[in-house]
């Protein structure tokens, strides 16, 4: 599950960057999301598409008030929610 969540997330980043004509920074776990080349709208689209493909939205589900800063945080959110 965790491997597939990661690859699904990475391919969504690439797909949305392409659709929105944005240059995506090289993806690594310590990349700060706001430096990835995607804006808030892009992230909203990524989260919505991931909810469709993975079946859940870890941000809507959690009571925990925190926001992911790096790509690694973002992936961990999904991996934790899938457990």
């Amino acid at each position, binding site marked *: 599950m965790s491997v597939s969540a990661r690859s699904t997330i990475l391919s969504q980043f690439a797909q949305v960057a392409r*659709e*929105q004509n944005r240059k995506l920074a090289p993806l690594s776990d310590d990349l*700060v*999301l*706001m*430096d990835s080349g995607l804006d*808030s*709208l892009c*992230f*909203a*689209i990524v*989260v*919505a*598409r991931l909810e*469709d493909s993975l079946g859940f*939205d870890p*941000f*809507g589900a959690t*009571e925990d*008030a*925190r*926001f*992911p*800063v*790096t790509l690694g945080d973002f992936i961990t959110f999904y991996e934790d929610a899938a457990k």
Partner: protein
Amino acid sequence: MPQNDAVSLAQAISDPARRSQRFIWSAETQVALGDLGARSSLDCSIEELRARSVLILTRDQLTAALALIQLDGIARRLVLCPPDVDAAHLPFVTATAEVDAVVSDYAPAEMGAAQGGRFVACSSRTSPTDDVRGEQRATEWILFTSGTSGAPKMVSHSLASLAGAIQAGGHLAGANVWSTFYDIRRYGGLQIFLRALLGGGSLALSSEAESTTAFLTRAGVHGVTHMTGTPSHWRRTLMSGMAQQISPQYVRLSGEIADQSILDSLRAQYPRATIAHAFASTEAGVGFEVEDGLAGIPASFFGHAAHGVELKVEDGSLRIRSARTARHYVGNERTALLDADGYVDTGDVLELRDGRYYFSGRRGGIINVGGLKVHPEEVEAVINRHPRVQMSLVRSRKSPVTGAIVVAEIVLKPELAATAASSENSTLKAEILESCHRALAAHKVPAAIRIVPSLEVTPSGKVARPNA
């Protein structure tokens, strides 16, 4: 309060005791407010613009700010163009607002047929002037409402209606350093511009070209004490990893629904700050501000006047009556802005649960994507142009990032639907997305498209809209 007595912006900042050490900062430069009496950013004497209806159309916020400060009290009308104004609509704006002078940092040729009367160049740089302001007048301020499709809608305000303080004094007056993610050429940002100027403070402007990280760093350097933005702006701040660059005393969210999660996150990030969520619109003015740290609005805010504002719920939507609402629409006076009792219908639908009112959406199904409004019909019209689409429904879907996003459901024409293979459907979705990207602003393009067998249709033959 001195700000309520000011005839003009220039007069409000002219008090020598209060103007020292006060600045407006942009990403590129800074202007000392104390210098503005003897310097001008306009390529003419203000005398030439006296009593005129002046359109202000600028590339950047600082240039607009300087023009506003100099021309409020001089011009008969100031028509403030928002940053995304469509050049094709400028002739309509010019005619409707009876514009007879344009102040701009665009070249006249770039503005095409928009020019009305006298053209005056302006910039974000100032040079010495011997302008004498002379007698000042109460200038009418014309603002564009947000979220209209087609020709812009404009409303009439005054400095008094824009600046009337909800909480006279309190923590919002004084030598504060304000900043806002908003553009000051729209109502939400203009509020902050005026609060900073009239309340004795300074202002750090945002810049479209600047990253969240760079903006927060700059705001931190200027020692920002009061900061405002939409919940989406604040989510972006928390996601930037640079939220600690600022240590505000006051954090305000408006323009979108503030949910408990973002309020709690900001409380955790800024434990010493007042975290407030507020309602304001170009038409209805500032309605209320909630400072108890909870989502929703206490029911006790309704049914009586507080701070000069009366709130009520009628036919499910929020209505506001105060001296801060706009007076009337411009060029469309037959469309009433105020009802018979003087209330503005905000169109925002409220639900009462356990003693608090919560926003549940907009009447008419308007979708709010990170503070930008989307009319579903505009997006549906683009989707419906595709030869294989029979009908479509564009609606809102909740987003933890931008509050809401746009999604679409489409019904294919029957003769084509039966034969469609799934690979063809993904090609079709890609084609529709591409045509949406060509015709619409990015926030209006559906994040997801779903092909459905049918859509509910009302007895009047329209697609049934949830929340409508």
